[in-house]
């Protein structure tokens, strides 16, 4: 075989093109990047034992339940994403590790236990955080840190995040949510009289970056149509705004929702949208041609 022939035959197999990378691997790369940058620059984890606990719990649960209930070896990639998300987002009282162990278990187990028409309804991390914050607010809170003030760190995460979201074909979800958030921020500012920047401020923090790149865009827990996904993202922003306005009004009995408005908005809206979408699709498939 000539060199030219070798090059010709080898070229298509060895030449790198990023579009060939599995989107899930890009998401794994992005969340790992956030973990590394956040820990290197800002010690965002609060202790490596937390990472070990959540990753260990998520992966063990995934492996065990997949074998036990589905009789097959599981891919651990989604457990890895959930584990890192939880390690980054959960900020419990000092010295407590159980929220990481139990959070990891609840996140992954929810995929196997709360199932409708063969699909789980909640994003695993969102489910675990929602349960922990609602049931144990006396000892568990979520990430409220920021990335400091370095433009570079923010730019890297936003830049890579947007590229990955585009490659994973979920950029429309991210942008729909962001647009809705900004418009509704202006609305809240007009209603409450609070500075506009105070209303927009939350979206500049790392908690929101994790939310818009990993939670609300989770392909496994988003509805089937592009328009539907955008609608759900707007609905999440609307429910979040309702929570935020209630927070501004100081409605006491809704206090547990104020701890994390976007995550809890998705916690309530996401599964309802999934259930409705799955039911609609099932009816359509069952309908006579």
């Amino acid at each position, binding site marked *: 075989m000539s060199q030219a022939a070798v090059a010709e035959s080898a070229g298509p197999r060895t030449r790198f093109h990023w579009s060939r990378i599995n989107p899930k691997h890009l998401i794994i790369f992005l969340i790992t990047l956030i973990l590394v940058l956040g820990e290197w620059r*800002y*010690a965002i984890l609060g202790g490596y034992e937390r990472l070990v606990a959540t990753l260990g719990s998520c992966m063990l649960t995934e492996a065990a*339940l997949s074998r*036990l*209930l589905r009789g097959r070896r599981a891919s651990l990639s989604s457990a890895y994403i959930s584990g890192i998300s939880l390690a980054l987002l959960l*900020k*419990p*009282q*000092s*010295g407590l590790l*159980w*929220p990481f162990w*139990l959070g990891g*278990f*609840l996140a992954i*187990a*929810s995929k*196997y*236990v709360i199932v409708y028409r063969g699909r789980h309804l909640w994003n695993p991390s969102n489910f675990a955080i929602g*349960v*922990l*914050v609602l*049931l*144990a*607010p*006396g*000892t*568990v*809170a979520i*990430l*409220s*840190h*920021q*990335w*400091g*003030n370095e433009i570079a760190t*923010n730019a890297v995460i936003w830049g890579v995040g947007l590229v990955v979201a585009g490659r994973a074909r979920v950029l429309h979800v991210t942008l729909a949510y962001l647009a809705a958030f900004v418009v509704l921020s202006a609305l809240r500012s007009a209603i*409450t*009289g*609070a*500075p506009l*920047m*105070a*209303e*927009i*401020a*939350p979206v*500049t*923090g*790392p*908690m*929101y970056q994790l939310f818009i790149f990993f939670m609300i865009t989770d392909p496994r827990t988003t509805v089937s149509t592009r328009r539907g996904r955008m609608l759900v993202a707007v609905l999440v922003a609307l429910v979040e705004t309702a929570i935020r306005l209630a*927070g*501004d009004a*100081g409605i*006491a009995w809704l*206090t*547990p929702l*104020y*701890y994390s408005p976007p995550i809890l908005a998705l916690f309530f809206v996401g599964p309802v949208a999934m259930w409705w979408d799955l039911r609609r699709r099932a009816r359509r498939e069952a309908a006579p041609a």
Partner: protein
Amino acid sequence: MRRIAVGVLFAAAFAAVAFLGRPAGSSEVEAADLGFHLDEVAARRGVDFRHHKTTLDPRLENVAPHVAGVGASVAVTDFDGDGWNDLYFTSSRFGTPNGLFHNRGDGRFESVAADVGLADLNREGIGVSMGSVWADYDGDGREDAFVYGWGFQRLFRNVDGTAFEDVSERAGVRVWMNSNAAIWLDYDRDGRLDLYVAGYFRDDVDMWHLESTRIMQNSFEFATNGGANRLFHGLPDGTFEDVTGRAGVGSTRWTLAVASADFDGDGWPDLYLANDYGPEELYLNRGDGTFELAGDVGLADDSKSGMSVSLGDVHNRGRLDVFVTNISERGYLFQGNNLRLNFLAESDGFQNVARGIVADAGWAWGAQFGDLDNDGFQDLFVTNGFISADRQRDYWYGMSKVAGAHGAIFEDAGNWPPIGEASLSGFERSRLLLRRGEFVDVAQAAGVEDELDGRGVAFADLENRGVLDVIVANQDGPALVYRNEVGSGGHWIQLALEGRAANRSAIGAEAVVEFGEARQRQVVSGGMGFASQSQRRLHFGLGAATRVDRVTIRWPSGTEQVIESPAIDRLHRVVEPAADTP
């Protein structure tokens, strides 16, 4: 069947979250089992003082309760040298007086601040008080006062125990800072006291005449845009020289509290800083007039909201451990207080062992170690609560909007949501963490039930009875004096140390008292906690021990003095021996 088993496990995990997620609560200790009780007696004893918060530039109206949430301080001093502890409180509003309460020795106090010239300190163009630290800086045997605050810092020389002279300008310390902390120390061990003054808001900010509202922290975790800290070196002629740059201790983090002691056992006093919006900092004294920021002792990565730093010997190991208060709020934030055991000698680091009630004390401010029940172990008193306003309105949600955002947004106070009449971690009660093996909160059983916004807290034996009483300065509220009634059984010993040369206050001296299996170390402090200074003399509870084996005193000069088998249940006045005296 497998699916059912997994479902049961899943449900059990829910139950476990609800069970394990219960917040740490008060212990069930009954008052009768405590062996001591605290009675609030301020009004009855003549300590009638109320702190007033500062006014601010109108452009800060939306965050005024937050920004003006400090300034209530307490310092214990014996300004007239009569052997009875007196009390000095600061107020922070223009035109309101600071309070000096002279201990008459009969259980009552009399207000003498105006008589001695220490009342009318809060004036427009000058500034407002945020706290005071006392020491005999000129070696004349009388306690002088350094009053720090927002505006010009001020030094008052004690003339004769009946009057104070403002020597700030002459001494070279009349500098404009926005300070919430200061301590006396002798960092170069030259026998003369030095001053370390911490900046909070930037020095170029006049809080009543702002040029810009971009005065806030630029990060909630890593802010370095606060006022620079300054080290003033005491000179023989009674003046001070700013040696901050040379010494390398000009941190621009938002320092709220400072303590000094020899943490690494090299004989030189180090500096430990509790910084708001940032990690704690330990400056190790190199012994050549410079300090080194300790980078590998486990502090840099643990960024919180340090409010107060207190030193105590938690396990009677002969070490000074560190307690730093922080913020915890249900659902929103669990920074947790830090109780750092000092293992610098073994492993170059600290071990944070704060858990449960020690870690979560609400929005914690001042704290002090002291043996309140004379059982031989030091206890912790922690004041709590930030803004108690409308009980029905809470600012935590409002603050959470900006707290996680990019610093460029919340650095501008104008971008903060208006706080209005809302509370922010308001109506929290103080914690009294008693050593019962682990720390348990016995505040309510002991009689501490107020829900005022505590800031400074100091311990002092106000009636020379061999017990520690508790004095609390409350923000925009009345000062409290808790008289300690200790039951019989617990023995004690007190040491009043007097140094030679100019540092007659013996600040920096460390004493180790050995009794039974215990070796308890304490340091003579030039200010400790948040906006607080406890009594100068050292108080050691001895529990059931009927003898003290040995007291070892290491004076700031380096002289070591050993006292064998001193009598217990009494105060010992110890003068530093000459260098060649064994």
